[in-house]
């Protein structure tokens, strides 16, 4: 599976409090969360982001709270992929569980710029910056995550386990 879109670039340690501030956690409705996504770090994000766009960030993306509302807010914004040097572990897990694609690739994060158009292939882990022509190799999803993804996230996976 491939995705492509415009890049929104962020720095290191983008925490869940700026992805979706706690004051908006009184509802878990994706459409409500979308309207406040990244609000405390980039007020205009919600108006500028278009379906398919890609977030590229630095180290430790999604650090902080366990709120699943964070990957849900990003996914509901139409973002097709988040690439970071690495992710905080709860965010990593939550993203897989809710079906927000993520890739770890420090090299891509260092070289891709805001506004570039990039393409990523989840099966091979290849990221191509169409603006500069450069390519990067991220680790493709490990098999067990592909299995969860193939079941439509953790819910589908658990449903099939419960049937056994």
């Amino acid at each position, binding site marked *: 599976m491939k995705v492509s879109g415009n890049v929104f670039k962020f720095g290191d*340690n983008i925490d869940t409090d700026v992805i979706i501030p706690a004051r908006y956690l009184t509802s878990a409705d994706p459409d409500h969360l979308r309207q406040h996504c990244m609000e405390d770090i980039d007020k205009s994000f919600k108006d500028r982001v278009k379906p398919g766009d890609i977030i590229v960030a630095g180290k430790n993306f999604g*650090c*902080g*709270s*366990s*709120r699943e509302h964070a*990957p849900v807010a990003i996914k509901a914004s139409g973002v097709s992929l988040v690439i970071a040097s690495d992710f905080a572990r*709860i965010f990593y897990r939550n993203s897989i569980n809710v079906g927000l694609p993520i890739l770890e690739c420090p090299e891509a994060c260092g070289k891709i710029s805001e506004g570039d158009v990039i393409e990523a292939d989840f099966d091979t882990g290849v990221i191509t910056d169409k603006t500069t022509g450069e390519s990067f190799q991220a680790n493709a999803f490990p098999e067990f995550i592909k299995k969860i993804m193939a079941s439509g996230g953790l*819910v589908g996976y658990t449903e099939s386990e419960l049937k056994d």
Partner: protein
Amino acid sequence: MPMTMTQKILADHAGLDSVAPGDLIEAKLDYVLGNDVTTPPAIKVFEKLGVKDVFDKDRVLMIQDHFTPNKDIKSAELNKTMRCFAREHQITHYYELGRKEMGIEHVILPDNGIVLPGDLVIGADSHTCTYGALGSFSTGVGSTDLACAMARGVTWFKVPDAIKINLTGHLNKFVTGKDLILYIIGKIGVDGALYKSLEFAGEGIKSLSMDGRLTVCNMAIECGAKNGIFPVDEITLQYISKTNPERFSAKDFKVYTADEDAEYSQVIDIDLADVPLTVALPHLPSNTRNASDCTDMKIDQVVIGSCTNGRLEDIATAVDIFKGHKVNENVRCIVIPGSQKVYRQALDNGWLQILDDAGCVISTPTCGPCLGGHMGVLAKGERCVSTTNRNFVGRMGDVESEVILSGVPVAASSAILGRVGTPDEL
């Protein structure tokens, strides 16, 4: 193959003789918990799964603490969803406000004798890592993981590598577990232990009280760790003999010890006497300084409480410092006992009167201001010294407000001085 404490607990709960870092395992869970923010979305997923009952009504815990007493209609609706589910499924550990068992999740689970050494716990709250202080494995997850765990009582884990924190010596006067964990986060950074366990060892642990250890493990997540864990010693055993005398007498808990030759990706030696009174300046918990180097920073508010520092020892420490002093005229100081039990003990001990005399406001147990929910949200440009766990942009209110993290002695002293300060200045 030699294993760390964490690896042994995971192996045992997965029914395996041994595990190695990187192994993917499915493990049985002793407890699964959520709060009023994370449980309602989990209930939605749970219902979608079409499961009739939770795997064990005594082992699925639902704790109201984030936006309670409810701050607005939406948070009341969230809480109602959880309350109705808890009643319908006869969840044993769901407590109403004001009841003697209620309080902030990570304060009450150890203190009510629910979590014991050797347990494996997941919770839809990042600070679930707190219980490692008791020699258990606990870690935070999201709502979907919570829902599936509520249904099956199992979840998958990737077995973590570990960093060994070798402690020697004794903490200096007024220096607490909070200063130690801030000091560690300052050393290794907010991603310094990403995906790893922080395993504490060494004779220095003897000088850390159980409340201090709970604070240390609580903030393991702030350097990215999967969990923090302390070996079980006399202090642990004494603690659980009080919190759960029945299971203690019946020896109904399991003590795990790391193998002598267990492998660690890194070993950090810390002489506790070197740990200063520490603060973390905005906007990362790793942005640490000696508190005594920040005494020019004026403040508007102090918060003493939270799952990090709302335990009995914390309130006792605050009371000792406030005795005979007044909160500075430019500061409001909010003290939040972490549980009804802590609140009641503070009341019975006459501590609330001392805090009230000093000019503190005393709140019912809640996470409230820590996450900018309610009960002490900051305005633009305001600065707060707080015993909570995060100082990210906008964490406690306006994006242009500031949170400085500290232990209780620095927070209480700062409230009196009207600026960042230390007890020896009083």
